């Protein structure tokens, strides 16, 4: 179950009722991941497994440092390692991005979800999956612009980073931020994290990373997990981080216009049929039709028509 009260819910999947607003003034939180400070130790991955009481299967080494090879229902965060030759400086750069849910302000998963209350967004910006309401349809996977949710083949529930909503609810930071030895992962209010990012970006720029910047994509309304990138102009080099992520127009059409169109068209057809019957009346077979048919059948049987029944 989710770690907050229903009072803290700002948005709820597949629900049209107005959410409670008394706490809507809550501060928005954010996790800031400073990619330039990450040393790739995977303490965050270990802390995530430990705090959330998850176990990842022992995998195989395929020659890269990524372990496991992708996000899974058990691994909600993953260090993605990229070796990159900077064509401008000739330097070799090791880009290590901690992948996981971005906690979008406009979450595609929540928009796509058909199960009421299976995905909620709290007033502090955290997007959480409420497993007891999840039906395992994987629509959230289609909705997500970052390819984050994973469906368990064991229990058919969707899983992803909760931003440690249970810890945040009692005033603690996420487990990954607590474990990070270089403070590459920081946690606080979104405003504070932006300020912190500004200082880091100024520092990076002074060191020659002229394109350093904050990744807080506006296509999804901004995110509650942000990255400081040395190369904000090319986010794709960080293991495919999308440059301008947004909810796919296909998902918007499917979850927006299609719904109204469908119910409208179906209602129109049903009401139209009702009034057709009201106006035109039933299409009935007359006695003459029956007699004509009988005559035809008798002709077919080479018998003479029986005129006595036609005497009207």
């Amino acid at each position, binding site marked *: 179950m989710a770690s907050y009260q229903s009072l803290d819910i700002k948005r709820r999947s597949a629900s049209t009722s107005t959410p409670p607003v008394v706490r809507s003034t809550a501060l928005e939180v954010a996790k800031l991941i400073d990619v330039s400070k990450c040393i790739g130790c995977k303490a965050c991955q270990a802390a995530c497994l430990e705090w959330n009481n998850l176990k990842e299967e022992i995998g195989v080494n395929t020659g890269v440092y990524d372990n496991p090879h992708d996000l899974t229902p058990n691994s909600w965060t993953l260090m993605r390692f990229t070796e990159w030759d900077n064509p401008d400086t000739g330097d070799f750069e090791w880009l290590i991005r901690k992948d996981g849910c971005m906690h979008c302000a406009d979450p595609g998963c929540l928009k796509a979800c058909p199960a009421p209350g299976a995905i909620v967004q709290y007033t502090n910006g955290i997007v959480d999956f409420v497993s007891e309401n999840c039906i395992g349809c994987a629509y959230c996977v289609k909705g997500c612009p970052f390819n984050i949710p994973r469906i368990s083949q064991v229990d058919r529930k969707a899983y992803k980073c909760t931003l440690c909503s249970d810890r945040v609810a009692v005033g603690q930071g996420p487990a990954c931020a607590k474990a990070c030895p270089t403070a590459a992962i920081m946690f606080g209010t979104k405003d504070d994290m932006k300020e912190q990012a500004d200082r880091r970006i100024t520092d990076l720029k002074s060191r020659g990373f002229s394109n350093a910047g904050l990744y807080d994509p506006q296509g999804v309304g901004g995110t509650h997990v942000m990255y400081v990138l040395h190369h904000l102009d090319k986010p794709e080099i960080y293991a495919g981080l999308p440059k301008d992520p947004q909810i*796919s127009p296909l998902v918007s059409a499917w979850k927006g216009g299609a719904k109204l169109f469908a119910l409208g068209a179906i209602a129109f057809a049903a009401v139209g*049929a009702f009034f057709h019957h009201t106006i035109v009346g039933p*299409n009935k*077979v007359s006695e003459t039709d*029956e007699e004509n048919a009988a005559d*035809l059948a008798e002709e077919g049987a080479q018998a003479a028509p029986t005129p006595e029944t036609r005497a009207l």
Partner: protein
Amino acid sequence: MAVEIERRPLIVERTEVHRYPASARVNHWITAFSFILLTLSGLALFHPSLFFLTDLFGGGANTRAFHPWIGVVLALSFSVLFVRFWKHNLWNRDDTQWTKQIGDVVAGHEEKLPELGKYNAGQKMVFWGTALLIVVLFASGLVIWDEYFHGLVSIGTNRLAALVHSLAAIAAILLIIVHIYAGIWVKGSVRGMTQGNVTGGWAWRHHRKWLRSEVKGDGDGH
């Protein structure tokens, strides 16, 4: 005149024409019930205000699990129906004429229409439309059947499949509304599918060419 007088003769001849054998009827109703279950479970997951329909299937997760299997039943059942009926649904000149006179059809002025074979153009359009939509629904449905076909195609294709699946479903539901309403409006039709026969008068009125061929004995019975 506000009052119509109808004098009924004491003896009226009744003829019955065999229209559907039991196998076709069973085949049709398996398809029909599958379609209704698919509509209820599909709409439940399509619009939040219809999510309550999942209660009919034992909750959201069960609805999600059952829906594609019902789809498989429908696809198999309709395939048999298709093989059975496709020959009778080939388009001919009378159908073009019927379509041109759709105003007379809707107004119930059947005496102005050409004599028709076993099916009229509207029935044929429902038949081919349903066949096409079932192919689209089955293909797009397999793609988004995450339990067994996860990762079969890219997420982008998945999104497209979800949209196509819902649009095709809407179109299919609209066709079925036409189909069901036609059965309600044209009295005497439903017994063809429930009991297997129609009255001669019904055949005379709506499918006279078919009746003539049945009388001659060159109809194939289904």
